[in-house]
């Protein structure tokens, strides 16, 4: 039975499913991301995801980057288990007061040079949770942010576009 499934996998590329327009955009995006990532960081970029208070919707879409349709790893972009292995922190959520210290410590544990990407509307400015007694606000109130990817939650495509935007500028801001 497994052999049958593997045969199916060999026969049919899973990336065929999306509608033509999306596929074109995605392919273009993917190619750019590939080139830029190679130029900037050799052949790989390690990403550590930190949920600093999200409702978990952003996590679901970040997860989707790993599925067969988006297959982030084909570009050498991969999620790592520890901040000590990471080049990029992908931070979601309005930063809650209860997560503030953990986010700060994760940031400090990430070796230089490092970039921080704030994912989702909440990570930009606290979003709908701004003003709560339990919330600090956007990610930039706690650690320096290099890029915001908006959306509630941002789609996997928007996330890909965002990672590209991080890599595109010829001159990145001086790194901490």
């Amino acid at each position, binding site marked *: 039975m497994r052999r049958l499934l593997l045969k199916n996998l060999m026969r049919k590329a899973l990336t065929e499913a999306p509608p033509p327009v999306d596929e074109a955009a995605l392919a273009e995006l993917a190619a750019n991301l590939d080139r830029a990532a190679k130029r900037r960081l050799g052949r790989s970029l390690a990403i550590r995801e930190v949920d600093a208070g999200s409702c978990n919707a952003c996590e679901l879409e970040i997860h989707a980057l790993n599925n067969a349709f988006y297959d982030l790893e084909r570009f050498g972009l991969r999620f790592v288990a520890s901040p000590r292995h990471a080049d990029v922190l992908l931070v979601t959520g309005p930063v*809650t007061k209860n997560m503030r*210290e953990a986010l700060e410590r994760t940031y400090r544990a990430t070796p230089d040079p490092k970039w921080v990407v704030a994912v989702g509307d909440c990570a930009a400015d606290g979003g709908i*949770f701004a*003003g*709560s007694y339990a919330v600090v606000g956007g990610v930039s109130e706690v650690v320096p942010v290099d890029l915001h990817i908006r959306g509630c939650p941002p789609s996997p495509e928007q996330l890909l576009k965002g990672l590209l935007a991080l890599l595109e500028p010829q001159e990145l801001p001086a790194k901490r």
Partner: protein
Amino acid sequence: MTKSALIGIAKRGRKVDGHGPWPRAVVTKEVWHLAIQELVEARATLLDLWADKQTVHMALLDETSNDIMVFTVEGRDFPSVGKHHPAAIRLERTIRDLYGLNPVGLPDTRPWLDHGVWGIKHPLGSARRSSGAPPAYNFLPTEGEALHQIPVGPVHAGIIEPGHFRFTASGETVVRLEERLGYVHKGTQSLMIGADIDKAARLAGRVSGDSTVAYAFAFAQAVEAALGVKPPQRAVWLRALMSELERLANHFGDIGAICNDASFSLLYAECGVLRELTLRTAKACFGHRLMMDCIVPGGVAENLAPDGLQHLRSLVETVRRKFPELIGIYDNTASLQDRTVTTGQLSPALARAFGAGGYVGRASGRDFDVRKAMAYAPYGELAFEVPVFDQGDVNARVWVRIREVEQSLGLIEQIVERLPAGATMVDLGNLGATGEGLGLVEGFRGDVLVWVRIGADGLVAACHLRDPSWFHWPLLEAVIEGNIVADFPLCNKSFNCSYSGHDL
């Protein structure tokens, strides 16, 4: 059908007007004790326990008659339910943290959601400023020879939510797991107070992103019950359609992720494809992959796209073609079965005592599904079964999901065939109307409860939202005991508790 004893007990209190669809009664402490006794003697199930200024409410379910009754006791001190019924302990610790009320006799008075860094005490009660370094949290002691501790989190290794797990192990065997949660507490209930219904609905949809449809549905039910509004037929059917799409997407994700935690990445990849196809169908039908903000009080904000029925038929056809083969692989791979069968067993007695909902309860013999028990619209008109297993292990929790995928496909087919035409929204006309309502919806993870009070100004005066995870988290501590540390990811993923839904 026999009348529930809960109704008799509530008669000894004062019935509150304008609370629907189930009644609420203000009772004395003596009568409150009688209600607790129903829990202790397993004649009732705790649905929820929450505070509202200086009062405490307790929603109880009689599973033989499916009656729900809300009891209310007034005053700063109230008799602890947790003292007699452990499922209530964390809820009472939360009431202490947020409202400063005192559950008299509560056996565990450590703070729960309050980590001492809000700068404020009792934010929803008589709030006062607090400052200084946060106090150390005292984990429960473990004593014995050659025990070691493994602290994990709040930042975990995967792309998941934050929480802290403190394992005590003897060699490879877990002797005790203690959870510490609250890291993603956002003060959602405080933001609800004084919010207009639109904003409150958006907040409800962001309590737990993976259950945004279930929360929006339950919130809409609660508001509609409070205001005496009936949503149009088509809207109600579309709500069920969204609910089943959400269930499918999450079950695919979970089945794949559980296999992945046993390092069986083939099924993870294949289930990920089915999940993605489901999300794309949702986007094509309702304009949003997770269907956020699509359900609103009064109806639905998004009508089904003109070509939606085609997309749905094609999704059902694809899943029916692909899914059985994947299940065959799951069931026939010895190395995978070796990891899931008999791992993380939850006894039916514990599942019942904690009122465990969803796949956690139904994998341990608790035959409860709100769609069947309350038959809320439109589920009373739809044919489906509630799969129940009684082994209580990781494997059984996988099988509940597998069978539910099949049921959800059948439900989607019925909705596609019989979707009524007509309006998708009614005006709430809520200016001047006040009332209280309770909503109860079967999310993918279990029963989601929302209680709301609407004031005369049309704004939300109070709101409480209870995730099924409140009763799952403590059971996860129980099932890991005696298992090896390496099986924790499997146990954890088979529960897939929500951190955000719990921390609120």
